[in-house]
């Protein structure tokens, strides 16, 4: 499709303990753009990000990041490639034994030999961007869940990676910080040219910043296109998800046997 994609996913198959999560997914993530991945809870969006970061191996298919098949290169090359990736984990995953400041400074200290004064400036700039400069000296356990996620975001962008993957950046944020984060993601993308992948359920927020949207469900890409196209799409899948209708072709429930049968089963 596009010629300039940073991440190319071709015919991806993956199963968790025999339960198929992906069966033939093709995705292109264009350089310098914001690509949104949407889909019902439990379809494997987090799994997809892990596959891009090569933390898990696919059963079939390939993931090319910046010209390298991340599942074929050796450990050393992989760790090198990951320096150019940032990932915001769904549950923050801050290092609990060091302060907020040290958490954000961690990747900088590990990968560079910058003087302490410069590290301090960099960390404070990143924390200011997520509105938490004042909490620099707190421990992660002293922050709320939403605040922890913002610190994790500051840490993920500490080294200005070329590719950044946000796993539900807006979850647990109040409307104000949500607005700030939406703007932050947009700004990082525009000013630094960070290629961004946003996994999110917040349709209006995501649609407002994304350049391209993939909708995945039941192991496949069920729709893709510019946000405006998807919002006005007439396909039942897309309509149901984008407008948040409970009933439709996308089931709300995890596969199970009949409800009534299950209740009266002894």
């Amino acid at each position, binding site marked *: 499709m596009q010629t300039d994609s940073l991440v190319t996913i071709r015919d991806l198959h993956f199963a968790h303990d025999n339960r198929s999560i992906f069966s033939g997914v093709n995705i292109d993530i264009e350089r310098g753009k914001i690509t949104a991945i949407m889909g019902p809870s439990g379809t494997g969006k987090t799994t997809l990000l892990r596959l891009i*970061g090569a933390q898990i191996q696919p059963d079939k298919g390939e993931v090319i990041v910046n010209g390298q098949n991340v599942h074929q290169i050796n450990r050393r090359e992989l760790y090198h490639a990951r*320096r150019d990736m940032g990932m915001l984990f769904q549950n923050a995953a801050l290092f*609990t034994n060091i302060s907020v400041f040290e958490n954000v400074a961690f990747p900088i200290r590990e990968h560079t030999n910058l003087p302490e004064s410069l590290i301090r400036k960099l960390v404070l700039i990143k924390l200011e961007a997520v509105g938490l400069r004042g909490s620099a000296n707190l421990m992660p356990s002293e922050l709320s869940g939403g605040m922890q996620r913002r610190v*994790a975001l500051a840490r993920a962008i500490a080294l200005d990676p070329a590719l950044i993957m946000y796993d539900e950046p807006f979850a647990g944020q109040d409307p104000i910080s949500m607005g700030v984060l939406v703007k932050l993601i947009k700004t990082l993308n525009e000013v630094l040219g960070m290629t961004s992948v946003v996994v999110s359920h917040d349709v209006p927020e995501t649609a407002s910043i994304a350049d391209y949207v993939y909708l995945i469900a039941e192991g496949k890409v069920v729709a893709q296109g510019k946000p405006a196209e998807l919002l006005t799409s007439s396909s039942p899948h897309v309509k149901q998800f984008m407008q948040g209708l409970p009933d439709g072709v996308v089931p709300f429930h995890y596969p199970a046997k009949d409800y009534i049968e299950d209740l009266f089963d002894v």
Partner: protein
Amino acid sequence: MFERVRELGRSGIDVCSEMGRAGIFLIRMIFRRPRLIKVFPLVVEQLYAIGVLSLIIMVVSALFIGMVTALQGYHTLSKFGADTQLGQLVALSLTRELGPVVAGLLFAGRAGSALTAEIGLMKTTEQLSSMEMMGIDPLWRVIYPRFWAGVISLPVLSLIFTAVGIYGGYVVAVKWLGIDAGTFWSNMSASVDFHLDVLSGIIKSIVFAVVVTWIAVYEGYTTEPTAEGISLSTTRTVVYSSLAVLGLDFMLTTIMLGGW
């Protein structure tokens, strides 16, 4: 019937492949050549957490073990009128057996379980994953310093244990049971051989250090990322490393007594 045999075979294969994985893991830890400038402060930090913080339990236990060895020894030796040999008995039991073995067991309970739980929890809360995604190998950044800190700590702790234990024996023998201090020390130094006794104790403690720390970090690193997973791995660390210490002690003693 066939089902049973098949199951037995399968679990046999599982055990073997697990041992293989753990072995590769150990080899990687030992033969890795990291940049010393970066790794040194990390090891020192862990030496404090693993070694220094285990000191108190070691010292207190060593005192008691030394004292009880002296008491028991005196009780038996005096039956043969050999109570002047008490110094020798205390020193030999501690340098050759009790020092390395009890220190190893205590280390497994105090430091090994802590290591497994800490690493396991880091894995469960995705701290290790996020480190991987930052392009930092947790095997290098988290596991390696802990492994070496454990390997360095235990031999030193064993030596301290032995020394304190001997002092405990001295207190009971001389201050309490009234054995002449000169006899106590001179009999001891006349009969303890550096090679045969002290060195063999040190070798044992080095072997225990590698094995206990290896089990602890491996169990933590491969834990199943759930609360039960961590509790299971922590238990396994203590059980496996205690058994390993006792089993290896028997093997090493056999080799040392037979060969030297």
